[in-house]
């Protein structure tokens, strides 16, 4: 069976989606921009992009009921790719916007880098995946972030990077992949990671009974 042809990208307001759209096309998928809670919950492939501030992004998600749709999507283990701020939105809160609750799907708080040489952390950094990670592999990926999660939560696999301190490069659990870096801007390494995320799920769904 062929991979599904549409990938749904959530409109989060201020995010620049052109790079995500271009990356989807390189994967042979047709990008669709969505802000409808029902589609966020049920579309086969959903991307939560992330550029901008934590507080403003959560406000947009709440306005459209997308926050609850995302919680249900993750509970039902449907494929989700969260990018950069998108990963941080899965956490309970962020130092960037004190008092604003995140989606609470990851038991962690996003904090500003404390020992980094320069912030934002801008450029290509290497990642080191945990032993049981399925789609994440060692490589060099492009980042542009000032906030990060400090450690991989107990019930997730993932990868770590170092920039004056160790921090979470990415998390994965079943069909959920959350990247602090930008796979859509990470050249061949990013393309291959996204291809593995897509095919891993397709393989599971199409396994013979």
């Amino acid at each position, binding site marked *: 069976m062929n991979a599904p042809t549409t990938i749904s990208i959530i409109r989060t307001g201020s995010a620049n989606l*052109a790079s995500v759209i271009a990356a989807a096309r390189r994967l042979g998928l047709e990008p669709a921009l969505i802000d409808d809670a029902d589609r966020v919950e049920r579309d086969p492939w959903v991307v939560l992009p992330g550029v901008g501030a934590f507080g403003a992004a959560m406000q947009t998600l709440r306005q459209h009921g997308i926050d609850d749709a995302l919680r249900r999507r993750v509970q039902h283990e449907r494929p989700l790719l969260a990018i950069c701020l998108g990963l941080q939105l899965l956490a309970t809160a962020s130092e960037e916007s004190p008092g604003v609750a995140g989606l609470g799907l990851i038991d962690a708080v996003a904090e500003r880098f404390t020992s980094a040489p320069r912030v934002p952390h801008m450029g*290509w950094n290497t990642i080191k995946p945990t032993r049981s990670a399925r789609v994440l592999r060692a490589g060099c990926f492009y980042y*542009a972030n000032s906030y990060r999660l400090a450690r991989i939560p107990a019930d997730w696999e993932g990868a770590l990077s170092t920039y004056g301190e160790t921090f979470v490069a990415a998390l994965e659990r079943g069909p959920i992949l959350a990247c602090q870096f930008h796979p859509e801007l990470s050249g061949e390494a990013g393309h291959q990671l996204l291809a593995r995320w897509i095919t891993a799920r397709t393989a599971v769904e199409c396994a013979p009974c």
Partner: protein
Amino acid sequence: MLTRRIIPCLDVRDGKVVKGVRFQSLREIADPAERAFLYQQQGADEITMLDISATPQGRATAIETVARLRNCLSIPLTVGGGVRTIDDVARLLDAGADKVAINTQATREPALIEQCSRRFGAQCVVIAIDAKRQDEHWGVVVRSGQSLTPLDACDWARQVQQLGAGEILLTSWDRDGTRSGYDLELIAAVSSAVTIPVIASGGAAGPDHLIDALRAGADAVLAASIFHDGQFTVADIKRDLAQSNVEVRL
């Protein structure tokens, strides 16, 4: 480990890549999308496109060029040149830029930096500073080097960081296009004045110049002529940098 970035720069006018000396005497050399893709294949870490069109029609062409670059690039794209308003920034981001560089208008209206940073995030906002040596310090020139402002380059760098800039693109007006090497003292002074990343630009003729700039404190190096003339590929430069123990993405 965060690697040092090598950033080929395309000066684009009316849809063509051009190159000049000290911002003057321009000559056309290539199609921007073909060039950008070639540099990506060679291992460029990012592409910067500066629109130097002076006409409204040229600006409209630049938006189309950004969209064309985006479609063929899987690495970050910074776009600058003629950015005056927050709507200009939004248009460039929508067309496919990942970061937008603001120069002249930021000096006239520093609040624009704050507005863009709040709306799009600091990581989108690059402030381009064209520095020119004065007696005891570096001044800031604007309008493609035509006007000298009263600003001091280091003070201005601190101020743009304070206002929410995510990165500084620091060009030595004195060295631009001269192939006499980056202004290392300028790089050291500005990169120690701020804690946001600094991209050094202006004067590169070969790998040694790039290595010197990175050792002087630059987080990334931007160059144009050395790549356009085919004298060095990005891969050549990166190999030399790696041999000199500079961390690069190979």
